[in-house]
């Protein structure tokens, strides 16, 4: 007979199918009931019932079933006692009506009557070599509350002391955090405090980052352990990962099988402890892991309370500090972008130059606070015109600073304006070192138009092609040179075009018509169609500018994208300047 297994309020025992072993099994169950404060008279009744039931479980055993064991299990609830006896015999038919033998003096036929008379509920499930008899009775007396006043008082005292200690530490932590300390320093100091309070050997604290799938380390003690700086919640099958994902405490001990990539392996092989998830406002704030360098950690209720309560508070506090830092960072970023936008605006011409033969209107994109787009129109001393559209890679202050440098260099080298390729080369030479150091580049297009409006010279540096139309056809002039800042000794080339046959010229950045088609930005074909129709319809540059802006706006609105198009329309005509040319430059954000 195997040893009885006792767990919680249950009893289980296998026993060989003999009368002697059945009797011993019944004694064990009854003793277990007695041990669980079942009254003596109840135990006596159960002994009789179980003796009858166990006998039935073995007396039908055939010789070939002799090696099979029967099984008895008992369970206690607040109100009931339930016992199940399982056997592997062929079983028997449970009578539909349970009565005493008609013959009072019959020597047999009372066992089932005794069972049913002394229990509230009986069911017999007969199967193929597997029969189960379930017996249930209400407890005659409710379980007595076992109150050990002294022990209870002791526990309450310990709990109150623990609460007081935790509360006192929380007050100290609040005071400490109020000194505007840096989060890492605060975490390190308090992890050391927690180590002492919890009687632990090591602690590691990971706090949630902006990227939800990663938990970077904020602190760990002792400093001799070199913890992994990052816990990847997507791939690592680690104890801390389970705590973070399930939001439930994860205990580990000498029997825990750590995955090869589990960061806790850094603490040693024979460790035990607890990985406790930290939450703040329903979000995962981090994971605090507390452990000892031995296979089993048995913290007292006080120690566990301190770890959980103080850990939760520390986590919430650090999470709040992190949020505050993020908000400060966002404010700084916003301010930086405002500065960049101011710089960008200061570089723009108040009005684009107009001549009797050449009209011009432009639209400048402003993505968010500031973009990297730049445009300019300069009336040269000889009456010629230089038009510039450029795009500094990147956003914010760095892009605005390079746009400023580009603007200054452009205006200080206007003597080269009639030869855009030489001007472009000069700009590249002057800016290459700084752009290369910052790992940035600028695409640009320089267009020079002669004073009589008949000749156009264009040079590109990695920029979108120049488009020309006479109302019937489109000419696309691709820029051949590399962007500024890519090659120190880059060579550029001018393309000369007679403007006598064209009425519309379009310079633009990638934001207007990217190589991507159908993504909300105008496709190449759409842009060509529009330009052809605009060139046929009007010589008014501002009207064409407004028309193209509406077309682009409807495309980006449909795709819920931002207006990031910068473009310039140059028209050549014989009409006098329209009133619209007084508003030759428009901005996406007003």
């Amino acid at each position, binding site marked *: 007979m195997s040893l009885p297994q006792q767990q919680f309020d249950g009893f289980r025992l296998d026993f060989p199918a003999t009368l002697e072993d059945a*009797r011993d099994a019944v004694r064990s169950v009854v003793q277990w009931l007695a041990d669980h404060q079942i009254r003596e008279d109840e135990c*006596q009744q159960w002994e*009789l019932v179980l*003796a009858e039931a166990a*006998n039935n479980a073995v007396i039908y055993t055939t010789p070939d079933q002799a090696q099979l064991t029967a099984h008895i299990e008992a369970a206690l609830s607040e109100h009931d006692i339930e016992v199940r006896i399982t056997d592997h015999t062929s079983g028997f038919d449970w009578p539909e009506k349970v009565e005493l033998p008609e013959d009072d*003096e019959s*020597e047999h036929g009372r066992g089932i009557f*005794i069972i049913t008379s002394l229990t509230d509920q009986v069911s017999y499930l007969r199967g193929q070599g597997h029969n189960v008899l379930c017996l249930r009775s209400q407890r005659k007396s409710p379980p007595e509350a076992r109150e050990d006043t002294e022990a209870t008082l002791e526990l309450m005292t310990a709990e109150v002391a623990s609460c007081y200690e935790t509360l006192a530490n929380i007050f100290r932590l609040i005071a400490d955090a109020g000194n505007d300390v840096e989060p890492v320093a605060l975490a390190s100091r308090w992890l050391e405090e927690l180590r002492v309070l919890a009687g632990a050997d090591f602690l590691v604290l990971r706090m949630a980052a902006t990227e939800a799938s990663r938990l970077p380390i904020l602190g760990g003690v002792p400093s001799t352990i070199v913890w992994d700086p990052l816990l990847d919640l997507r791939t690592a099958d680690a104890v801390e990962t389970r705590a973070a994902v399930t939001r439930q405490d994860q205990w580990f001990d000498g029997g825990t099988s750590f995955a090869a990539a589990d960061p806790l392996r850094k603490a040693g092989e024979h460790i035990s402890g607890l990985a406790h998830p930290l939450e703040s406002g329903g979000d995962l704030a981090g994971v605090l892991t507390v452990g000892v360098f031995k296979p089993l950690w048995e913290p007292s209720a006080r120690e566990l309370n301190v770890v959980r309560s103080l850990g939760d508070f520390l986590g919430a506090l650090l999470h709040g500090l992190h949020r505050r830092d993020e908000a400060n960072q966002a404010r700084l970023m916003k301010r930086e972008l405002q500065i960049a936008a101011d710089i960008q605006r200061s570089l723009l011409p108040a009005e684009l130059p107009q001549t009797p033969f050449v009209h011009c209107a432009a639209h400048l994109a402003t993505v968010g606070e500031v973009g990297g787009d730049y445009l300019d129109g300069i009336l040269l001393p000889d009456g010629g015109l230089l038009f510039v559209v450029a795009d500094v890679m990147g956003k914010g202050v760095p892009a605005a600073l390079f746009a400023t440098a580009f603007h200054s260099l452009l205006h200080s080298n206007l003597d080269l304006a009639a030869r855009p390729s030489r001007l472009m080369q000069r700009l590249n030479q002057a800016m290459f070192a700084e752009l290369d150091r910052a790992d940035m580049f600028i695409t640009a297009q320089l267009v020079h138009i002669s004073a009589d409006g008949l000749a156009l010279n264009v040079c590109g540096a990695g920029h979108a092609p120049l488009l020309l139309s006479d109302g019937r056809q489109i000419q696309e002039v691709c820029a051949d040179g590399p962007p500024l800042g890519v090659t120190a000794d880059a060579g550029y080339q001018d393309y000369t075009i007679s403007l006598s046959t064209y009425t519309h010229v379009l310079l633009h950045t990638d934001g207007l018509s990217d190589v991507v088609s159908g993504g909300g930005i105008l496709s190449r074909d759409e842009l060509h169609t529009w330009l052809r129709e605009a060139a046929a319809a009007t010589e008014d540059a501002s009207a064409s500018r407004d028309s193209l802006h509406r077309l682009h706006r409807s495309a980006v609105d449909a795709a819920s994208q931002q207006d990031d198009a910068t473009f310039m329309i140059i028209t050549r005509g014989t009409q006098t300047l329209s009133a619209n040319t007084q508003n030759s430059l428009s901005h996406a954000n007003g």
Partner: protein
Amino acid sequence: MTLTASAQITAPAELCATTARLWRDRLEREIKPEHEEACVDLSKTRFIDSSGLGVLLTLNKSLRARGATLKLVNPSSAVCQLIELTRLHRVFEIVHY
């Protein structure tokens, strides 16, 4: 006064399926044909099951068949309750001293 030949037998602490055969053998040995009654002392018997009752019924039947009687002496309250539950108090003569 006529003296009745009586067999005095003390039942074991447990009269159940595991002890029934031995108990039956013992009764056969100790109760002689000349005994007009058999007194089974149940005062030390704390547990009886249906098999134990069966042995007592067999004994009762065999004694009655030859005109002798069976007396169950001083059974515990638990044993009495079982006898009453199975309505054997109508069959057995129970005496308390």
